[in-house]
C-alpha cells in the first residue's frame, strides 16, 4: 500500500478562489486552525478571470439603488427559482463585503467624488458593479491572497488535488488527495470541510473555464451523500471569442456591453431589440436612439437591450446564427469602437484590447469582435443552508460556484464575485462554529483510506487501457452536442447514454510515467468528477420539461407553471445510483413578495 502524509486542521478549505480564501480568512479569524488547499499555485484560481466587476448596491452612482432592488434583479434574473433567502442575504451583505475588500487594500476605480465607481451590467437596473477596469477578479484574488498570508492560523497548501471527502458515521472527518508536484498522497484530518472548488466547465468543449473546472467539489459532495440542486442550469455566456479556433470560448467581458458595446448580425442589424422578453419590456429601450441617449446619461431613456440577462442574449445570438445571419465563424459582431473613443476603450477594457490584439489580431478600438456563446458557469451546486452554508451532510460546507441555490435558473453578471465574498465568509463562519461545537472529533476510517489510495494509483498500474485525454475530449464533445445551449429530450437521452458509456471507458483509463507532476495521470483521476457532474446535468435537464433561464429546450420552449415552483435535487441512492427528486421552492415571506407585485414567472420566457 502506498504511503501517505497526515495533516490535521480544524477546518479544511478546498479551493482557493474568492470563496475559499474568504472562508479561510473568516474561519482563521474566529480562532480555527485552517488549511487552505489550492489545486494550482495561490493566486491563480479561476477568480482571476472574472473581469466585469462585483455587484453591490452601494448606491455610489445611482442613489436610488438599495438591497431590495438588487434582490429583485437577482430573482428576476434567476427566473424566480433562486433560494430567496440566499438572494436576500447576498443583496444585503454585498456592500459590506465590497467595502471590506477596500479595507483589505483593493483599489477600485473611483467616482468623481472619490468613492467606489460602479458600472452597468446585464440585468442590473442601476450601475452596480464595483470594478477595476476589466480585471476585477485579479484585484479580488490578489487582495484576499495578501490578506490570507498575513492571517494567523491559516496554512496554505499549494498544488494539491483533493480526490475524496472522508465521511464516517454520517459526518465528515477529512479528505484525501495528492501533491501535484511529487504525486505523494496526503490525508487531511478535519472537523469541517468547506467546498469552494468552483465549476464544471471542462465537461464542455467550448468554455471560458480553465483545466481546474472539473467539478471536483460537486462530485465529492455528491459521493459523500450530499444533495445537489439545480444542476440543469448551466450558463452559456453570450460573448466568448469565436476565432481563431484555439481561443474559441475565451471570455469577452459583459463589461464591453456595459460600456456601450452593441451586437449586430451580418446584415448590420442591431438585433437585440427583437428579443426583449415581455417581462422586461418596460425597462429596455426600443429604438437605437433611445439606447444611445441612455449611454449618454439621459435618465429618462431606458437601457439598451444588449444589457438583458445572459440567457436571453445567448439565445438571441444563437437564433441569429441559426437564421443564417451569423458572422463568418458563426457568431455575432460586438462593436465598442462605434460607441467609445480608443482612449476610453483602452482604459476601461485593457485586457479585452490586448486579448483581441494579441490572440486574434483584431483592434477593438477600430473593428468589431466576433463573439458567440461559451460555457461559463453552473448555477447548480451543493445544496446549502443559506445562513451557515452547510450542506445536507454534517460538517461539509460549500460556497461560491460549487454551491447551488443563490442564482436560480440564471446568474446575473457581477453576482458571482459578490456571492464568493458573502457566502465564502458565511461558510468560513459556519465551518468554524461547527468545528468549535463538535463534542467528539470524528475518527478516520482506515479501510476507506486504503481503498481510495488503490483507486488513485489504478491508472498508473494498468499496463494498457484508454488515453484519458481522449476520454475527456469525447465527454466534452458529448456534452456540447447533446446537453448544450439548446436541448431536446431525445438528444439528451442519447447524451446520457454516452456519458454512462464513457464512465465505463474511464474505469480503464491508463497513464504512463510516475506520479510526479503527471498531467496524464491527473486527467485520468479528474474524469470521475467530470463524468459525475455531466451525468447530474443531463439527468436534471431531461427532467425539467420547460425552458427557463440557462436551460432552453426546443421541445418545451415555454415556462411551465408547475415547474416554476420546484427545484430538482440529486442525491446518491442507497444502491449507489443517481437519484433525482422534485422539491417545492421555499416560501418567500410576504414583504419580499411585495417587490414582485403584478409579475408572473409562469409566462413565456422569450
Amino acid at each position, binding site marked *: 500500500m502506498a504511503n501517505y502524509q497526515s495533516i490535521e486542521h480544524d477546518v479544511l478549505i478546498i479551493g482557493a478562489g474568492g470563496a475559499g480564501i474568504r472562508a479561510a480568512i473568516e474561519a482563521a479569524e474566529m480562532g480555527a486552525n485552517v488549511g487552505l488547499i489550492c489545486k*494550482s*499555485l*495561490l493566486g*491563480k484560481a*479561476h477568480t*482571476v*478571470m472574472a473581469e466585469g466587476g462585483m455587484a453591490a448596491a452601494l448606491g455610489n452612482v445611482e442613489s436610488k439603488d438599495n438591497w431590495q432592488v438588487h434582490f429583485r434583479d437577482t430573482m428576476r434574473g434567476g427566473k424566480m427559482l433562486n433560494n430567496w433567502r440566499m438572494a436576500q442575504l447576498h443583496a444585503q451583505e454585498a456592500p459590506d463585503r465590497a*467595502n471590506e475588500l477596500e*479595507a*483589505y*487594500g483593493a*483599489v477600485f*476605480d*473611483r467616482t468623481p*467624488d*472619490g*468613492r467606489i*465607481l460602479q458600472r452597468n451590467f446585464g440585468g442590473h437596473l442601476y450601475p452596480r458593479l464595483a470594478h*477595476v*477596469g476589466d*480585471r476585477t*477578479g*485579479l*484585484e479580488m484574488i*490578489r487582495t484576499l491572497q*495578501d490578506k490570507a*498570508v*498575513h492571517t494567523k492560523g491559516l496554512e496554505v497548501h*499549494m498544488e494539491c488535488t483533493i480526490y475524496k471527502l472522508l465521511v464516517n458515521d454520517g459526518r465528515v472527518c477529512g479528505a484525501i488527495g495528492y501533491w501535484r*508536484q511529487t504525486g505523494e498522497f496526503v490525508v487531511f484530518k478535519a472537523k469541517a470541510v468547506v467546498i469552494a472548488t468552483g465549476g464544471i466547465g471542462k465537461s464542455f468543449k467550448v468554455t471560458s473555464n*480553465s*483545466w481546474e473546472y472539473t467539478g471536483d467539489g460537486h462530485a465529492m459532495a455528491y459521493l459523500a451523500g450530499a444533495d445537489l440542486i439545480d444542476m440543469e442550469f448551466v450558463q452559456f455566456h453570450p460573448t466568448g471569442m469565436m*476565432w*481563431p*479556433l*484555439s*481561443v474559441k470560448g*475565451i*471570455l469577452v467581458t459583459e463589461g464591453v456591453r456595459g460600456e456601450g458595446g452593441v451586437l449586430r448580425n451580418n446584415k448590420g442589424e442591431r438585433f437585440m431589440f427583437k428579443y426583449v422578453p415581455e417581462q422586461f419590456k418596460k425597462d429596455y429601450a426600443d429604438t437605437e436612439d433611445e439606447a444611445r441617449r441612455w449611454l449618454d446619461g439621459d435618465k429618462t431613456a431606458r437601457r439598451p437591450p444588449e444589457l438583458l440577462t445572459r440567457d436571453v442574449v445567448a439565445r438571441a445570438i444563437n437564433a441569429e446564427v441559426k437564421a443564417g445571419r451569423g458572422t463568418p465563424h458563426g457568431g455575432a459582431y460586438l462593436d465598442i469602437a462605434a460607441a467609445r473613443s480608443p482612449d476610453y476603450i483602452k482604459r476601461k477594457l*485593457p*485586457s479585452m484590447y*490586448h486579448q483581441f490584439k*494579441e*490572440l*486574434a*489580431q483584431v483592434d477593438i478600438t477600430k473593428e468589431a469582435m466576433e463573439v458567440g456563446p461559451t460555457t461559463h458557469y453552473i448555477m447548480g451546486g451543493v445544496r446549502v443552508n443559506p445562513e451557515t452554508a452547510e450542506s445536507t451532510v454534517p460538517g461539509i460546507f460549500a460556497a461560491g460556484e460549487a454551491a447551488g441555490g443563490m442564482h436560480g435558473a440564471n446568474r446575473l453578471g457581477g453576482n458571482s464575485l459578490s456571492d464568493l465574498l458573502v457566502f465564502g465568509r458565511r461558510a468560513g463562519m459556519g465551518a468554524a462554529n461547527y468545528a468549535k461545537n463538535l463534542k467528539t472529533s470524528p475518527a478516520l476510517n482506515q479501510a476507506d483510506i486504503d481503498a481510495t489510495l488503490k483507486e488513485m494509483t489504478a491508472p498508473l498500474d494498468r499496463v494498457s487501457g484508454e*488515453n*484519458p*485525454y481522449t476520454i475527456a*475530449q469525447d465527454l466534452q464533445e458529448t456534452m456540447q452536442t447533446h446537453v448544450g445551449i439548446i436541448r431536446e429530450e431525445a438528444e439528451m437521452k442519447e447524451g446520457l447514454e454516452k456519458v454512462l458509456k464513457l464512465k465505463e471507458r474511464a474505469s480503464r483509463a491508463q*497513464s504512463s*510515467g*510516475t506520479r*510526479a*507532476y*503527471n*498531467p*496524464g*495521470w491527473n*486527467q485520468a483521476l479528474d474524469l470521475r468528477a467530470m463524468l459525475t457532474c455531466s451525468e447530474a446535468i443531463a439527468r436534471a435537464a431531461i427532467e425539467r420539461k420547460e425552458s427557463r433561464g440557462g436551460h432552453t429546450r426546443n421541445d418545451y420552449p415555454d415556462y411551465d407553471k408547475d415547474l416554476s415552483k420546484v427545484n430538482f435535487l440529486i442525491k446518491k441512492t442507497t444502491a449507489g445510483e443517481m437519484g433525482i427528486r422534485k422539491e417545492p421552492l421555499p416560501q418567500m415571506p410576504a414583504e419580499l413578495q411585495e417587490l414582485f407585485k403584478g409579475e408572473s414567472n409562469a409566462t413565456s420566457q422569450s
Partner: protein
Amino acid sequence: MQPAKAETGTISRLMRVFRGDQKRSELKEFTINQHPGMVVLDAIHQIQAEQAGDLACRWNCKAGKCGSCSAEINGRPRLMCMTRMGDFAPGETITVRPMKTFPVIKDLVTDVSWNYEINKKIKPFTPKPKNADGTWRMQQYEVDRVQEFRKCIECFLCQDVCHVLRDHDKKSEFGGPRFFVRAASLEMHPLDTADRVPMIKESLGVGLCNITKCCTEVCPENITITDNAIIPLKERVVSRYFDPLAALWQKISGLPKQPRGGA
C-alpha cells in the same frame, strides 16, 4: 522572429521541449500540427494529448490573466498562452524551456516557492482611519499609478530575466522586480500608512538593481517596472538614508515617510 501574418491551413512544425528534472534532462523533439491562430500552449497540450501524456506544464486561464504558463520560448521569457505559433517563420524550430532562474521540478514546471516567501516579508496594507462618513475618498488620478502595479499577474517572468537573480543568484539578498512592484503598490497606495523603506533597502535590497530594464521589457502586462516602481523606491531609500537635507527634515518634522505623492 517574423512579423505576424494571416495564417492559412495547417502546417507541420518541429518543437524541442525540455524534459526531465534536476538530475537528468534533455531537449526532446516533437512534430506537431500547427493550426491557424494556435499558441505555444496549444502545441504543448497537443503533445500531452497525443505523444507524451506526462509532459508537465502549468497553465490555468489560457488568456494571459493568471500568469501560470511562463517559459522560455526560443530563449525569450514569455507566457505560452500569449505566444502565437504563427509569429515564428514556418521552418523555424520552436524550443520551449522552463524558466532558468528557478529550480526545475519537472519538464516546464519550476519551483517558484521562493517568491511566496519574499511576499510574506512585505508589511501588509495598513490603512489610515476612515472619514467621518465611514468611507475613504480617493481620486482616480491618485489611484492610477498603484492600479498599474496591481495589474501584475505574478508570472515571475521579470524575476526570471533579472540578472541579479538569474546570473548572480542573489535570492537571499534581493527581492526582485516583482516585489518592488508589490512594495510600490503599497507604498504609493493613498490610504496606506506603513513604512517599508527600511525593508526595501535591507531585505529587498533595491540597491542591487542597476536599472537594465530587462524586467520591463518582458512584462506581459506592460507594467513600467523600472521607471515607475523601482526608481521611485530607490529615490525613497536615497532620500531617507543618504540625503542630508531630507534626514534633517525628517528629524525636525518627525515624519517617518516621504510626503504623499513625492517619489
